[in-house]
């Protein structure tokens, strides 16, 4: 079974589960949440469309090699800071992010720097923020969360330096 199919089964299974709970609270509750969810969907589709279709163009003008170049053998905190910027600037989905991390590890990038890169990418890769987080969440929350997240790739790198390699 492919991962995508598994995700879909888990996803729709959860929808069914919470839908059933809502239905047992009474049809008005069920109908109201169904309407609310559909309205959210209708409102979000244009923004998702902009994000999905637009991010291809943004990714096309930031070549992967540029990002990989930033993750060079530069060690120490300067290297960590560069890795954080690279993580935030990485376009594309998880395949690109993790592949860049792997390439950096194999070509002599320091482990704390790669950890900082992966964590920064997970926390605030601009494309995921634009494509997913902003359409679904209040923008004020998203910017606040990103700002608060900035120190944590550095914290992860520091922990990696203390506890050593995997």
């Amino acid at each position, binding site marked *: 079974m492919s991962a995508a199919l598994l995700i879909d089964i888990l996803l729709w299974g959860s929808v069914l589960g919470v839908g059933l709970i809502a239905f047992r609270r009474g049809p008005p509750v069920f109908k109201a949440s169904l309407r609310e969810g559909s309205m959210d969907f209708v409102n979000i589709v244009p923004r998702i469309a*902009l994000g999905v279709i*637009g991010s291809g163009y943004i990714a096309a*003008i930031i070549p992967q090699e540029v990002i990989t170049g930033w993750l060079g053998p530069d060690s120490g905190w300067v290297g960590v800071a560069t890795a954080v910027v690279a993580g935030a600037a990485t376009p594309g989905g998880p395949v690109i992010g993790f592949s860049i991390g792997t390439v950096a590890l194999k070509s002599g990038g320091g482990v704390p720097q790669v950890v900082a890169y992966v964590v920064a990418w*997970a926390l605030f890769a601009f494309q995921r923020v634009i494509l997913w987080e902003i*359409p*679904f969440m209040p923008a004020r929350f998203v910017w*606040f969360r990103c700002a608060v997240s900035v120190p944590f790739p550095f914290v992860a790198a520091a922990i990696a330096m203390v506890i050593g390699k995997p």
Partner: protein
Amino acid sequence: MDAESEPRPGRTRKPIGWSTIIIAALVAVSAALVWRRDGTSGVLEILTHDLSLFGGILPRVLAGCLLGAFISEILPHEKVSRSLGPKSGLMGLLIGTAFGAILPGGPFTAYPVASALLAVGADFGATIAMVVSWTLIGYGRAVAWEIPIMGTDFTLWRIVISLPLPVLAGALGRFVYVRLYPKPAAKDDET
């Protein structure tokens, strides 16, 4: 306090905010640069690829929206504000972290559900803990992408390093939030 059996009034969303405008401008500039570099065929190639991607994502987005709507309807408001609200303390951050770690699916579930939690009384701190936990220690992306590409050793080690981060991020969020917005902020959905 609203009666739990009554459906809540719908949230209002402004379709277009500043963020959308900035993104649209960014996309327009990028598309123009691609056009200058690769011509019309380059622009169309990306467009068809992304349109098919978009078509594949849509059902999941619908599922995510329904999940968020059902959750915000069935979760008891005052219980959520007690266990995930501004006064929920370390326990609230831990609950948010646990919730983010076990949530199934991808960004199409995590963000609608996080948005639903915010709407029913979770504070920024607990919601940040949830989102950060989903992205850093959630199993979905790790199993589907990180382990196959980066290897099991690196992934598990990276997750162990990340374990304290959701609670720390949530705590920092709460700490900054009460200083930035000393009064209970007015409910606004878009800046």
